[in-house]
């Protein structure tokens, strides 16, 4: 090791805070990999500013040997330290680190667990599922929420019965997250449960997310609930219900969609026009004509398109 380098490494253990900070900054600048091991040791420094700067530096080196010690920082009592370690690991972790991360879930440290649940989204490996499930029953709502969001990222998981219970969680924050996750699952109970929550949940964000999830699933079985939700007191719920009806086309939605053309929210009016276009029924034509002088330009454009679309459908069926 050259003497310049070893001088800075020695300074890492100086009693003076400023010395240590300068040493780390310099080592970061020099970029010599011989500094990695001493920097990892410096993670044990008492001062959180030092720890944070060391993490940034190790992140800069991006050497795989720093990954386990950085994982160790995820449960730090200092928020800045935890956040920096999390940011670094978001970039550095790969599927090779899966087992190390899963080990952390088994510890009792809340911060470490929460951060690992976030990191598992980067790896999105279905093998993590059995380790995530116990958090559905955690006492802590934040962990339940994080766990059910992470489930959403595991693209190879298509059924997960335990997630349904979280959609009835006492905490609305958990319910909001769980409902969106259900949009990616195909368990039998999913569509009936989402339909129920769409019309019955007391929290409007849960209802909105249920509409979004049903939009993703595009299952005709949800039609009645979606039609009912077009009359929801919250415009965002109405908007996403109407959006879902753009995909699930069913003539039972016709009256509700025609009403929605007069909604106070321009988003709802616009999306309803599109849904009517997709439905392709002549009964909608006169209502759509009336929106051609809507004050909102988007509404006018989409109504025009819808009218054209319905006329085209008509022409095709006439010839066919």
């Amino acid at each position, binding site marked *: 090791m050259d003497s310049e380098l070893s001088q800075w490494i020695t300074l890492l253990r100086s009693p003076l805070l400023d010395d240590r900070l300068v040493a780390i900054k310099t080592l970061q600048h020099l970029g010599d990999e011989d500094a990695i091991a001493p920097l990892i040791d410096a993670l044990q420094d008492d001062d959180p500013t030092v720890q944070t700067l060391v993490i940034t530096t190790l992140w800069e080196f*991006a050497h795989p040997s720093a990954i386990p010690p950085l994982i160790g920082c995820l449960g730090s009592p200092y928020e800045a330290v935890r956040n920096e370690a999390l940011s670094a690991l978001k*970039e550095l972790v790969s*599927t*090779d680190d899966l087992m190390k991360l899963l080990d952390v879930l088994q510890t009792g440290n809340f911060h470490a667990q929460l951060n690992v649940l976030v990191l598992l989204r980067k790896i999105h*490996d279905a093998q993590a599922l059995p380790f995530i499930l116990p958090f559905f029953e955690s006492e802590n709502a934040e962990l339940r929420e994080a766990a059910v969001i992470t489930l959403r*990222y595991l*693209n190879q998981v298509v059924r997960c019965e335990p997630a349904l219970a979280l959609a009835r969680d006492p905490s609305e924050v958990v319910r909001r997250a769980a409902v969106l996750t259900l949009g990616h699952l195909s368990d039998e109970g999913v569509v009936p449960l989402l339909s129920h929550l769409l019309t019955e949940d007391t929290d409007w964000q849960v209802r909105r997310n249920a509409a*979004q999830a049903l939009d*993703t699933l595009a299952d005709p079985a949800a039609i009645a609930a979606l039609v009912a939700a077009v009359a929801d007191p919250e415009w965002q719920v109405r908007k996403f219900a109407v959006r879902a009806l753009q995909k699930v086309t069913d003539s039972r939605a016709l009256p509700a969609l025609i009403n929605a053309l007069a909604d106070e929210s321009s988003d709802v009016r616009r999306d309803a026009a599109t849904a009517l276009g997709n439905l392709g029924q002549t009964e909608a034509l006169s209502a759509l004509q009336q929106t051609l002088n809507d004050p909102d330009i988007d509404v006018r454009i989409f109504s025009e398109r819808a009218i054209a679309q319905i006329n085209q459908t008509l022409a095709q069926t006439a010839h066919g």
Partner: protein
Amino acid sequence: MTNLNTDLGFPTQRLQADVLVVGGGTAGTMAGIKAKQANPDSDVLILEKANIRRSGAIAMGMDGVNTAVIPGNSTPEQYVREITIANDGIVNQKAVYETGRLGFEVIQELESWGVKFQKDPDGNYDLKQVHRVGKYVLPMPEGKDLKKILTRQVKRHGVKVTNRVMATRVIVQNGRATGVVGFDVRSGDFVVIQAKAVILCTGACGRLGLPASGYLYGTYENPTNAGDGYAMAYHAGAEMTNIECFQINPLIKDYNGPACAYVASPFGAYTANAEGHRFINCDYWSGQMMLDIYKELNSGNGPVHLKMYHLDDDTIAKIESILWANERPSRGRFHEGRGENYRTHGVEMNISEIGLCSGHSASGVWVNERAETTVPGLYAAGDMASVPHNYMIGAFVYGRIAGENAVDYLQSLDHLEPDPDFLAAEQTRIYAPLTQPNGIPHTQVEYKLRRLVNDYLQPPKSPHKMEIGLEKFVAYADTLTAMGARDPHELMRCNEVSFIRDCAEMAARASLYRKETRWGLYHYRLDYPDRNDAEWFCHVNLKRTESGEMELFKRPVEPYIVDVDLKREVYDVAVR
């Protein structure tokens, strides 16, 4: 102008450079160094979306140079012949020739920087024959240090580096490239860089097909390379070429890494069928070889394996030490875990997912022998630029050519102020997923997209399937608008998915356009199973029209500079 990034709390960073290199991998580091060497006063900046110390294909583990033309062993003319034949004649020979002509200088320069190449006891380069004819493969026993050495040279030459900024679009004004926009994947800042010349070196489109594991980043190629440069060049209006010539590689089954026949075959290993017999006579990767593997796998003689069990203990130990030490220690663990031993069993092999990569096959951004794309001021080099079978040395050579020519080109040019409407539109497009953190996660959106790629584009290619695929890729633009991101890192992934979609659409359209079979499995069409030189001895190019349509057309093959009689010299590696 709506200022979406400031609404989200992200400031805008403005940078300027004379030469802007996008991507700090093999080609990009060399482009930066050579631009600076050509004019030490010029301002050269490398933009890298990961961390230049460890980014790019080299970091996946490099065993040797695949295409070394070393005086006394082979000539550039021989090399051009070999690549012309391996690529079924569809090459711009002038461009291929440069790789042969300048490759040796690159090797010497790398050596002067401390890169070690294998030599025999007399001090001569220890070249191995892997190609059908001629020796071009030069082992690099310490390949794992290569990126470290390059990064050091970048620094020494005074090339600036901005890590963790992902470029998303090239700025084109007055018909020339004048910069790049992107964002910082750590802080989320919007980044606008003005430049007089832009060199794209963003590598392959390695995340097109989905690997057998279903793991999005478990690709053969470096998973950071999502086809960014292909999409950026396309949107800048540059011509793309032979996109239907996919990349497919022989892989170790269930293991993410090449089979490494290049390393093992000079020691006597070979690819064999289940009965232990050879069925190909050459391990150099080509579409024809992949077709023979595909046929063998589907013939009842499969599975196919890399056979070493006939070798002696010492030789196997030597192969193991090379394969396992060079940044792939996981390989040793992998075989151990499966209870496999090179001494007793063949290593079972499989066919990889598809990708786009000119470095291995021939699909890329159209460039001439000066590394120029069809957009003035826009250059491309490496795995994304259309010089076939270029591999690592070709990436270095074309990085060099691009760097030197860019410096030459920009002399009398000034910076142009970017159009605010363009910037505003880009912001809206790039940041959309962050405005809906509860949108569909990128992992779901990417997974479904790449399953479609597997289902509809994986050769052998069927026209009906490809038509369906194309329809789905086009419609997928809507699905992308539903994607959500929770932090800038996820935003990067979302933007990558949009690049992958662009590449999938290009791949489907180009594959439908070329109505013949060529390059073995790479473009094997069930409805046109034969090569048809009368109609298709040409490049298939595509570009974005003014109105935003994808337009396909034929481009004649440039006159050969090295005589090759393709009627007599058909690339054929099957053992009959």
